[in-house]
């Protein structure tokens, strides 16, 4: 599955599966950007493991060799949990209202410390 193709992303807004796919794409983006720093144990110096550019990396399930957890009855709960993160962080994002933004930005230098 080529999850990062523009077609996949652009078509993701119109259906439930697409939204879940979008969650996956976001998580994938998050997981590849730091090039694999695992934040629960010491690891060797991190170096880029992926080739960015015009050639798309060929990610597949086999590439990741994931351990399956929460199969069966736990799936719905997990999907719901993952979706809620996307739901809050993307769908519910709002900008600061103009007045508050004006107050904040007019005092930014004073707020640095």
């Amino acid at each position, binding site marked *: 599955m080529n*999850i990062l193709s523009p077609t996949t992303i652009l078509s993701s807004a119109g259906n439930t599966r697409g939204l879940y796919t979008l969650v996956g794409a976001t998580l994938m983006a998050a997981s590849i*950007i730091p090039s694999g720093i695992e934040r629960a144990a010491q690891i060797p110096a991190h170096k880029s493991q992926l080739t960015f550019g015009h050639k798309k990396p060929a990610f597949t399930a086999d590439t990741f060799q*994931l351990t399956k*957890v929460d*199969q069966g009855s736990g799936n719905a709960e997990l*999907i719901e949990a993952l979706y809620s993160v996307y739901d809050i962080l*993307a769908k519910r994002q709002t900008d600061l209202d103009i007045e508050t933004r004006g107050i*904040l*930005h007019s005092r930014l230098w004073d707020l640095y410390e």
Partner: protein
Amino acid sequence: MEGVLFEDIRVFLPRYLNPEHQDKLLEAVRQFPNIKQFYLLNKYEDELLQGDGWRGFVAINFHNGDRKKVSGLVLSNSCDIDVKNPRDGDPNIIFAPLIRVSRFKQILIEAGKSEAAATDKIDTIRRQCITSIFYLPELPHVLEESMAILDDLHQHPLSDFHASEKAKLFTLDQFAFYLFLLKLSIHFTRFNEALPRYSEQPTAVT
């Protein structure tokens, strides 16, 4: 169908996590927006990583050239600012200065906002619902409840930063780091808005 969706999502969880850490991440995802552990303690204390908080950055005021030593949140990706990676030239560390939430609330009230209105704004920030703000809960004895403004970014040359007096404030825990990256992704890319960039409708392919 549900199983397929599950596998779709599982594919995008990081492979570098072992099963135990994957379970911890999934547990943290389930508990969102309640996060038990936001900061990683006693790990990576000397490493400069994306999402770190450090004291010792220098912010420069664009309008008058003033300089100020500040605390900041690192936006640069870890590899680009790792001194172990050979490179030509001296990269910059991109950072967002940290602002104490209590000081922000104070200026809102000074500007005429009611206590209730100011509290309401702060609560929205705490829920990570403001696109341009990443909220950082208190880290006792280290960091007061703070926030970073994602459209107020500065840069500090890596070599100068390493040569300067500095101190690490915190490293984000795995799920907090995920949240940070998700917010960066949403703030800077907005790929979920699905804006087609064609001058005209594409011709149907037969």
